[in-house]
């Protein structure tokens, strides 16, 4: 499999704290990678660096061989990288459908100022995406009126709607109740199956990583301490200590 994303010596500090240290990593085309680690292990910093929200102190990031280190989030998104957020980043005063329509307009590159946003073909596609995510009953509601779980799903739906080559998800099940976690992930996986989207998701829940990823990466204090097949990686005592604080 060819390499889609590669980081070389990626390093970032916050003040004196090293949030990410000399990270060398390859993500392969078509893979489903789970990144696990405790709070402050550098997981979200990794996503913020890859998408250009933060700039690294050292190192570089390659997307399909192209150096994207100094590009802005907008430029990186336009190269086919989409992400979802730990705290949903939505347009609270627009309807669920309008949120999605904007994503579809952005994807098509037709952010024009004459034709309507509410176009038949976009509405139809939006409706389908909402169905996939079990959000169709919320279509005409303002996002501000949505329950937390639905917001989380919409946040991911907006990223998926961009049809990226690389999808990055920041804690897709954070804030979702324990019994709903697997349902959310099942929905996601069934949506992504069949598409060729390479997916990287960040999690602090071991069960989610074990069940849904094909490769697990463990972050601890800004470094990768384990990398490999999930069931093998996650049973390692050192990994458990790093993620859970006890073996």
């Amino acid at each position, binding site marked *: 499999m060819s390499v889609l994303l590669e980081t070389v010596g990626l390093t970032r500090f916050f003040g004196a704290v090293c949030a990410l240290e000399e990270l060398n990593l390859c993500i392969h085309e078509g893979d489903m990678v789970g990144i696990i680690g405790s709070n402050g292990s550098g997981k979200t910093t990794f996503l*913020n660096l890859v998408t250009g*929200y*933060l700039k690294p102190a050292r190192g570089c990031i390659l997307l399909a061989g192209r150096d994207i280190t100094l590009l802005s989030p907008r430029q990186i998104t336009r190269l086919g990288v989409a992400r979802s*957020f*730990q*705290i949903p*980043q939505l347009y609270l005063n627009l309807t669920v459908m309008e949120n999605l329509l904007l994503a579809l307009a952005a994807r098509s590159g037709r952010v024009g100022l004459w034709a309507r946003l509410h176009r038949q073909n976009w509405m139809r596609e939006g409706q389908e995406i909402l169905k996939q995510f079990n959000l169709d009953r919320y279509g005409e509601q303002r996002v501000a009126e949505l329950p937390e779980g639905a917001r989380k799903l919409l946040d991911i739906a907006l990223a998926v709607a961009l049809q990226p080559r690389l999808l990055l998800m920041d804690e897709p099940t954070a804030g979702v109740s324990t019994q709903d976690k697997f349902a959310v992930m099942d929905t996601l996986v069934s949506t992504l199956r069949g598409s060729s989207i390479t997916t990287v998701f960040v999690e602090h829940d071991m069960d989610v990583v074990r069940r849904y990823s094909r490769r697990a990466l463990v972050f601890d204090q800004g470094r990768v301490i384990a990398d490999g097949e999930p069931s093998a990686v996650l049973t390692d005592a050192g990994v458990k200590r790093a993620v859970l604080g006890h073996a």
Partner: protein
Amino acid sequence: MRLLLVVLLDGLAYAAWLFLVSAGLTFTYGVLRVLNLAHGNLYALGAYLGATLLLHYAASGSEVAATLGLLLLAAVIIGILAGPLIERVFLRRVYSRDEEVQLLLTFAISLILEDVTKLIWGVTPVVADMPYTSFGSVRLGGISYPWYPFLLVGVALGLAGFLWFVVTHTRLGKVLAAVIADREVSATLGIHVPRVYTFAFTAGAILAALGGALTAPMFSLVPGIGADVLVISFAVIAIGGLGSIGGAAVGSVVVGLARSAAVYFFPELDLFTIYLIMTLVLLFRPQGLFGEIEIRRI
């Protein structure tokens, strides 16, 4: 050589004035994160009341201390009357709302104060220049220079030192720093945040009025002086970085000297120096010289 001295003295006097009128605006913004658009009107009220007190109580030969005392009294009266009223009755209700609502609110208050000033003092110019003329002038390096601007520089330096001392060496300074850093956390530490806000807004109002009162002897007072002062103060604190008192001081000195140089060497630029500097600074350092960029956590 003489010309340079004059440029320097004019520049310092103007810098002192700029600092006096902008310190309150940046202080209030620093603590409350609200830009008070009524700042210029508080300045105007301070100027009018200061002039009135001078006209009534200061004989033409009265001393420096008495004059300064009267002007300070005017500033405190205005600040104590207007500050808590504006903050407690109006501003407090919009802290949770969008920034532009807060701006609109202070704009509404500015409109009201504009007419209040007109209703009290009318539209005919008020002149109270006794201190400026009666304090006389000093001879320095072969030139004669009025005394009053030196007084202004002294007061500005004193104020800067006082603010610096309060912020770095007192319990009050620590409380302010805590509230600025994190409102919620400082509330859990037992700080009465609403009271700090009222205090900070009132202090800013007194500073605004003080700027006006000290200016009163220099210009004749007419309606509308507040608007110019608001815009100029904003330019100064935008150069220094919104919320930074040190930034306001540096911005004042830079603008003061540059403008006084412009007056003598490029007179047609006079009016625009301040905005020119502001534009240049913002082009290369959008957050101002001493401002900080906040990155939102996502």
